């Protein structure tokens, strides 16, 4: 198909779009020029760097899983039901999206901290969340959850309830409808929402710093490690930043490919 944009989009829009793209890409490229390439490998494979990367991957995966477990039901309630105060609930649930992460950290402390509202209860149960890897996962889940809910809710609304209605008249229980119809239909959105959540969790800094602390192998994720390395070893910080960018690019690239593939499948259906 011949490109039609040249006639359809004003030239100044194209120019602005190019400026926007450069604005995003140029600093990243500039950062790559600052990398101490001869020592790159040794910088990013230092024990503290590797520990931070592995911790980040581990906690982000756990946070993504938590987002799916909590976010799918939330999205279903928001998209498929109507209840009093639903709009308010939606706005509140999406709040972490716009809150500065530090505030998220302070809020989490107030809830789950040792002296938080639930902290005492946890203490009695012998569970201590503060300064544990679990605290990192909680902080990441808190900030990443809205991404999944948002992506799923809009997909659920787009898909509509007609397939679900048909399935129920064919004798499928609500659980069967969810498992065999709803979830497969929104799978592309679930996937991209999960990837977004993962990426958000991977980049989480403020809430983790405030809520979880920073200890190698336990709570010091890659962003915290980069922040700390900057104090003494800017070269390592730059090298690690590049690693984080590469992981992010990889994740986003994978999503685009899978969602493109699944949208092809879906296009065939309509």
């Amino acid at each position, binding site marked *: 198909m011949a490109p039609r944009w040249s006639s359809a989009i004003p030239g100044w829009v194209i120019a602005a779009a190019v400026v926007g793209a450069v604005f995003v890409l140029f600093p990243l490229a500039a950062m790559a020029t600052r990398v101490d390439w001869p020592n790159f490998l040794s910088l990013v494979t230092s024990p503290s760097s590797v520990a931070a990367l592995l911790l980040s991957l581990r906690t982000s995966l756990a946070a993504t899983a938590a987002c799916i477990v909590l976010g799918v039901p939330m999205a279903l309630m928001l998209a498929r039901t109507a209840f009093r105060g639903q709009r308010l609930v939606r706005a509140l649930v999406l709040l972490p999206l716009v809150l500065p992460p530090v505030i998220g950290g302070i809020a989490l402390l107030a809830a789950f901290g040792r002296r938080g509202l639930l902290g005492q209860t946890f203490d009695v149960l012998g569970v201590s969340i503060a300064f544990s890897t679990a605290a990192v996962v909680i902080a990441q889940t808190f900030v990443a959850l809205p991404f999944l809910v948002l992506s799923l809710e809009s997909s659920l609304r787009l898909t509509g309830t*007609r*397939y679900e*209605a048909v399935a*129920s*008249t*064919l*004798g499928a229980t609500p659980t069967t409808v969810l498992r065999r119809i709803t979830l497969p239909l929104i799978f592309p959105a679930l996937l991209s929402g999960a990837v977004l959540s993962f990426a958000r969790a991977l980049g989480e800094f403020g809430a983790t710093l405030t809520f979880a602390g920073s200890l190698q192998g336990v709570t010091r994720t890659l962003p915290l490690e980069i922040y700390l390395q900057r104090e003494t070893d800017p070269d390592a910080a730059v090298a690690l930043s590049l690693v984080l960018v590469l992981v992010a690019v990889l994740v986003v690239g994978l999503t685009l490919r899978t969602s493109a593939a699944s949208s092809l499948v879906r296009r065939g259906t309509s």
Partner: protein
Amino acid sequence: MSLAIRARVAERGFEVSLEVAEGETLAILGPNGAGKSTLLDIVAGLLRPDAGRAEWAGTPLFDIGGPRPLWLPPHRRGISLLAQEPLLFPHLTALDNVAFGPRSAGHSREAARVTARGWLAEVEASDLEASRPGTLSGGQAQRVAVARALAADPRLLLLDEPLAALDAAVAPLLRRMLKRVLAGRTAILVTHEVLDALTLADRVVVLGDGAIVEQGPTREVLERPRHPFTAELAGLNLLVGTSSATGLVTPDGLAVTGAPIAPGVRAAAAIRPSAIAVHAVEPRADNVVRVRMSDLEPRGDSVRVRAGALNADVSPGRAAALDFVPGAVVYFAFPAGEVSIYPC
């Protein structure tokens, strides 16, 4: 009676009470917004009425506003819904779409597929079993959808304009197929198409503005309509008035000559549009009505001339000769033998 339902939805001004006998196919006719889909949704369990009760062979499906409120969810009603669009699950093959009902009923994957193959064969779609819905044509998809609805072994089948979205070329094939599978089944068919009702239904109910305006055996209702919408649907001109010794007199004084019935009762006269000839100069005939033309409408190999409440179908050549001008006065003429008069 197998299904008895009465329901009210205040918001839509819907209040209907009807019954469907075991093995009977009931057609629901009515203009858009008359409440046809509302009725189906209530029966299927997709819409909760404000008040009402439905039972199947004595066991309630729902009871709202009664002493013992009850609402069976759709999956526990044994009522399948076949919509205008096939709505095949896009992520499943045709076979697994059809097997969905049996699977949901608890059958093993293999047993469900055996059942599904049987139904695909029944709708002559065996060759499509491995296809994804996205690759099927409209007619193929609707055939698979019919198989899917039937494979769930419903005690009642709801059909919501199942042929409306299909090409004229494939609709007859599917209509014949539906006639075959609906034989002896209890079904409610919502349709716009009088042909569907005539081919598939034993009885019709005509809905207008959320209420039943007339009902009865299909042929009787469609050949002797009592409601303007039914007449329009049946393609008949309908004049309502009082029977006279020579035929019928309308309230505005128009006397129609036809085979008379007992005089002095409220009666209707039905005339096929194709039985009406259109003349520019007043002709001699049993019935001549002076009318003002309002509209010309091509209808395949004929042209419909609309003039107030009456329609006449003429050949395109004849229409051209009339030199149509809106508001022009013409004469509609028809023989007494073409007028059917009956009490209403």
